């Protein structure tokens, strides 16, 4: 569903993403781990078409993002670290607007069901987003993704800054989505969350995908060890 082939992105002399090959299938939750500057966010931006690749390809549902920028966006939803919504509109109106952009012709009642499904409290539906917490905004983001009924979801550090309970709730939402067959790519720093939620885990540093494994195959402390090894090894190389 989500695929990169020998993907490379350079900013001047700096190689942000180096020869990356990724393959995320439907129903998978792929957690991309890595320190700051590892190239995680660049990867996400390449998937979203916000930046153009220097070399290689990004494919969504088999379509090249660089060639079919708009069509590919029909299939993916995006939740950035700080999910931005229009502060003067209510949560419901934001959903209505963004759902409308995806050509969705959903009735008000359906939209409300989606908000409820995303876990937003009923009382918050008609409040302006300017008063929302980050967790609440993320829920609207999920509702938008649900409304879009997209086949893939890309999240950039979605749980940073969420308290453990909100983070937990959010993880459960992702599981529901993946049960529906959505391919999910999530970048994170949170090793614990990655192991709990993810089906597959990739560790990236300096633009290179160092290791990949199934979440069920590693225990938490093992993951930490592997992660540190990869990152340290990298530092030593440097």
């Amino acid at each position, binding site marked *: 569903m989500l695929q990169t082939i020998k993907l490379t992105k350079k900013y001047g002399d700096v190689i942000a993403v180096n020869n990356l090959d990724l393959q995320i299938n439907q129903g998978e939750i792929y957690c991309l781990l890595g320190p700051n500057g590892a190239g995680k966010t660049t990867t996400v931006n390449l998937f*979203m*078409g*916000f930046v153009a690749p220097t070399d290689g390809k990004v494919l969504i549902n088999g379509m090249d993002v660089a060639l079919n*920028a*708009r*069509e590919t*966006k*029909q299939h*993916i*939803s*995006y939740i*950035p670290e*700080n*999910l*931005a*919504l*229009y*502060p*003067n*509109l209510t949560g419901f*109106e934001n959903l209505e*607007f*963004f759902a*409308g*952009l*995806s*050509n969705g012709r959903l009735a008000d009642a359906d939209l409300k069901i989606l908000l409820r499904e995303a876990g937003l409290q009923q009382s918050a539906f008609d409040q*302006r987003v300017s008063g929302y917490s980050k967790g609440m905004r993320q829920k609207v983001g999920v509702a938008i993704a649900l409304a*879009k009924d997209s086949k893939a979801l890309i999240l950039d550090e979605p749980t940073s800054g969420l308290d453990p309970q909100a983070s937990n709730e959010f993880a459960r939402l992702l599981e529901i989505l993946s049960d529906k067959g959505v391919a999910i790519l999530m970048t994170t720093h949170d090793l614990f969350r990655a192991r709990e939620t993810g089906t597959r885990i990739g560790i990236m540093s300096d633009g290179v995908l160092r290791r990949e494994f199934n979440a069920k195959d590693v225990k938490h402390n093992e993951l930490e060890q592997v992660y540190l090894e990869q990152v340290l090894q990298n530092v030593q190389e440097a």
Partner: protein
Amino acid sequence: MSLNRFTWSRFFKMCRRLEMVRRIAEKEWKEQLREKRYLAAGILMGLLFITALISSKAYYENEQHLRLHAQQGIEENWLNQRDKNPHGAAHYGIYLFKPESRLALIDRGVNRYAGTAFFVEGHVRNEAQFRKIEDETGLVRFGELTPAYILITLMPLFIILIGFNAFTKEREGGTWRMLQSHNVSMRKVLIGKWAGVAFTVLMLFIPMFIVMGLIIYSVSGFGEFSLTHYMILGAVYTLYYLIFINLTLIVSWFSKHSGTAFITLLAIWITATLVVPKLFVSAAQYFHPLPDTNTVTEMYREARAGGIDGHNPASARELERKVMEEHGVDRLEDLPFNFAGYRLQVGEEYDTKAYNYVFAHIRSAISGQDILIRKGSVLSPFLPVRNLSMGLAYTDVENHWDFSEAVERYRQDFVLYLNEDLMYSSRTGETYLAGSDVWAAKPDFSYELPGMGEVFRAQTGNLFILIGWVAFSFLALLTIRPTSGEG
């Protein structure tokens, strides 16, 4: 039926395409409505507009009353004057007051700066006197609170206020990324935002325009109120707003921060409405200085040097001889008319020629100034709109000169009437005093405003420049490459 279905399906297809634009526009509008600053600004504009309308109406009615009253007083002066030689009456003269056109309620134009009273007398052509501005404090130089001030000067500021962050706020708030993550073309976003701003502006402008129309309609006064004329004025304002909407969105697109966008737009606004007009006025005054009173007097004196002075019999010898020869008489007393009246009329015509020369000189300096100022229209869309607005309201300089020429034509008739009365009511050498019957039968002055066609002919230049600005701003808006991401 099938044709019907065909058109409907096409219509729906188009609607679906427009659907997205409508959604974006609607969202934009909803956001504007909820922003307290915008709401406050809109309400303030409305209140100012109402204040302007009320004070303009009061001013108009007061002026109208004063002028009517003064004109009546002057007529009575004239009719009740003592019996005297008609030439004495020509010196006493009358005053004509320029009426304000009904549309001056919208745009007072130069009315405060142009004289309102024309002294009509023998020998002398006078420039209009009693300029309102002479009796003003310095406050009026900041601007006059009229509907046109709100519609031409302040409305662009409102447009800037609601549109300056159309794109910057999306960028600063991060929603730009959210928009981009959806399958929506940036051109539609642009059109949607354009429509959102335009809708708000029209929602403010249309009620103002209707209320203003009703008030003008209800006011009795000089000049016809034609709906077409009024609608054209409305179209001029609307075109002007389109220019500012386009400029605002362009600047917002290319700015990184809302703050810089706002400052840039305000700089554009102040350049267009204040700096450019003032700079061009200064340049006009520098390159085409107007003669002062003493220079004009000197010019007039030179122009008529060697001519026939109506008061100086010494230089009229030749004229006497010529007239007597023509009529085959030896004595002036034998002429079939009073030679004094004849001589005065000849002198008057000579004076008029001299004045025509002097005034042509003054007017050419003035039109040199006006042409130079009009060139500022290339740098400021405000200028052609202000000129159009004044022109359509009959309050521009052209109308003032038009009236002034009508007065001059009347002056010549007026003096001719009195001189002929002297000529034919008495014989040379007789003492003749004209009475109230002569005063009562003086020619009437009437002035009609130029028709719409004439106004449009005079305004074609401004209209073209305005349309040029609209076209230019739309082209500039199109240069925004809708696929480009961060701009």
